[in-house]
């Protein structure tokens, strides 16, 4: 009898396409994957324990370091959890500012995530660099409002740190004039490409039931055909005032996730348009002036707040014992939970697909290892 020998290969932690220090212990039979065991924890930095020692405001910059692509969204989610805990009102204008920042984050995240995904497939950086070009413009805007490009630390309890001015608005409008061109260009470049189709269609299929049982969220779940989006399911901030669609896939393969992300960028663009239009009528300032940011002591209780981060449902769970720092602080990180479906998605595919499937989940190790 002919028999083949299985080979165990460590992909990572030092590997060009594991998106950080992530290790996959894969067993391959030739090029076909037999088993996959994800190993992580290389980037553990005691985030949740720190959150129980710091004061509430001190923890805000730490949330930047979770998903370092979308620090604006992380800040928003954490601020919402604390506001819920302490019963803080947020002025309308601040809500609009947060929505604008969230949607800009979503565009920059998807632009780079799609670029990285195509890079994993072997497209030599063109799509990635086009994405990074747009990301760069958005990062410049973030730097203008918050002082930092990636670690924005922008939200405060009851609002945001600084108000946005007319210059910012005009710059956003200028940016948005260029965005549709980027979307079209990107779609023309590869969406219908034959090689992309054979690489992505039918690869890494995550059936609807399996996706739900793993409780994955974000584009991964929507790619599997479940129209679940926190922005619609439990509208926070001012998301109930906007008209936008939730793109869903049909099969749940890499290609569906790819298309869902492309379409989500267009929907974010729609939200941005409406938000900029509605914002001048919004009431209040950029922050609730009554809140004591430094010495916030929420009453005894617990709260869970979630937002739709570009990677999925990002939630913060807080328990207060009435003191200046949280008694318990827990992060529901979308990357971590989405990653748990990796092994089931990969089995039976080729080793080259594993990298693509991992890229299509769009993980950030800062969020997986907290």
């Amino acid at each position, binding site marked *: 009898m002919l028999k083949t020998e299985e080979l165990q290969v460590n992909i990572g932690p030092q590997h060009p*396409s594991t998106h950080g220090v992530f290790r996959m212990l894969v067993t391959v039979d030739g090029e076909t994957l037999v088993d996959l065991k994800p190993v992580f924890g290389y980037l553990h930095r005691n985030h949740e324990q720190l959150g129980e020692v710091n004061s509430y405001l001190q923890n805000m910059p730490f949330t930047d370091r979770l998903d370092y692509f979308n620090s604006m969204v992380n800040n928003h989610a954490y601020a919402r959890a604390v506001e819920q805990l302490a019963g803080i009102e947020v002025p309308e204008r601040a809500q609009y500012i947060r929505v604008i920042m969230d949607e800009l984050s979503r565009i920059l995240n998807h632009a780079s995530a799609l670029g990285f995904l195509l890079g994993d497939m*072997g497209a030599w950086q063109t799509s990635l660099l*086009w994405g990074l070009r747009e990301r760069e413009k958005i990062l410049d805007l973030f730097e203008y409002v918050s002082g930092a490009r990636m670690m924005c630390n922008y939200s405060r309890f009851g609002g945001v740190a600084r108000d946005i001015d007319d210059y910012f608005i005009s710059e956003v409008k200028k940016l948005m004039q260029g965005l549709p061109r980027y979307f079209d260009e990107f779609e023309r470049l590869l969406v219908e490409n034959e090689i992309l189709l054979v*690489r992505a269609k039918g690869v890494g299929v995550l059936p609807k039931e399996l996706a739900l049982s793993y409780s994955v969220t974000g584009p991964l779940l929507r790619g599997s055909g479940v129209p679940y989006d926190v922005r619609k399911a439990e509208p926070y901030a001012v998301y109930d005032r906007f008209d936008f669609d939730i793109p869903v896939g049909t099969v749940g393969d890499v290609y569906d996730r790819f298309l869902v992300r492309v379409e989500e960028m267009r929907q974010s663009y729609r939200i941005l348009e409406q938000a900029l239009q509605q914002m001048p009528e919004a009431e209040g300032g950029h922050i609730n002036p009554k809140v004591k940011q430094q010495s916030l002591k929420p009453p005894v209780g617990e709260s869970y707040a979630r937002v739709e981060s570009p990677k999925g449902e990002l939630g913060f769970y807080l328990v207060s014992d009435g003191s200046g720092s949280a008694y318990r602080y827990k992060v529901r990180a979308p990357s971590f939970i989405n990653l748990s479906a990796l092994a089931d998605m990969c089995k039976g595919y080729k080793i080259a697909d594993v990298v693509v499937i991992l890229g299509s989940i769009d993980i950030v190790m800062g969020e997986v290892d907290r």
Partner: protein
Amino acid sequence: MTYWPVIAVDAWIGLVLVSIIKVTLILVGGSLGMMFLTWYERRAIAYMQDRRGPNRVGPQGLLQPVSEAIKTMTKEDITPLDADRVVHFLAPVVMLGATVLAFAVIPWGNLFPSSLRVGVLFIFAVTGLHTVGMLMAGWGSNNKFALLGGMRGVAQMVSYEIPLLMALLPIILLSGSLSLTDIVTRQGDWYGFGWYVFSPVGLTAFITFFIAALAEGERTPFDIPEADSEIVAGYLTEYGGMKFAVFYLSNYMTNLALCFIMASLFLGGGNGPGVTALGTVLGGLLSLVYFFIKALALFFLMVLIRGTVPRLRVDQLMGFAWKFLLPIVLVNVFSTAIWVAITRWGPQAQIFTDWFGEPASDNYLRYGVAIVVTLIINLLAVYAVMRINRRQPSDLTEEEIALGLAG
């Protein structure tokens, strides 16, 4: 009786000197060409990606490869502890040797280093040695990624050499010669525009050869042996410093050689308007210019593809070679035979002469008929192959599955 050995020695010395000059020119020209190509590729891709590319060292960054050569040469030479030291050391030598050997017969314009009568065969015989170098590197590194890369490389090279050579057969049929010199000279008709690419069979051969050449030169979308997102750097993983540079030198020189071969075989080499009219010296220079323009245009096409498309998966790559390219090139050999019969057969087939007149280079009726017939055959072949490959396993009947027609 005493003078003839003197003449023989003179001739011998002359031969050696000429050979040394030729070898030096090839080695220097090849290396310089490789340096230029790396710069050219990076600049071209940079413009596609809204970047500048290397533009600091020297005018327009032209000396960037020099600075990199110095950098790699001064690096420490590392051999992994458990590597097979001899094999690990010899692998880059074998790779580079195979490439340089191929340059011995590749014409530079209308100038030939050596006019071997079986030049085409020789090129593909020696470039086949690449496979050995790749496997040596993969095996000798004692690294799983390197071994995977080496094995992938060997599988890819072996698969793609078949369509590559088969795509070449039409040219040999058309020219009736295996010598690159003859093949280039025969494309000089029609005011220097008698290129083989201008016939349906030549065009099909060119396109299939180009695709197979992308795979032979490990270019995107077939850069599987060194797919950095999957298996780190493939068989190059454990190489650094000068050995790594030698691999790259060999890789780019192979690409240069493939561009030269394609320019010679399909695009008429140095032939173009005015080459024959200007005489030997000026015409020779003009032929060099034409030749480099053609070769660089082909290389630009490779760069363009690299900057755009993702990589195929390894099984898709094999499927593409065996299920798509091979049937098409086989049909193309057949239609080339028909082309030759229609355009050239006089006494052998009286019926053609009766229908279309005597075979001659100005008998346009014969060429027209040949174009129509071969075009129809080739298009039908492409259509049929695409139909068969597009079908899903569920569409097939049991007999078809038994015949191995599953897409």
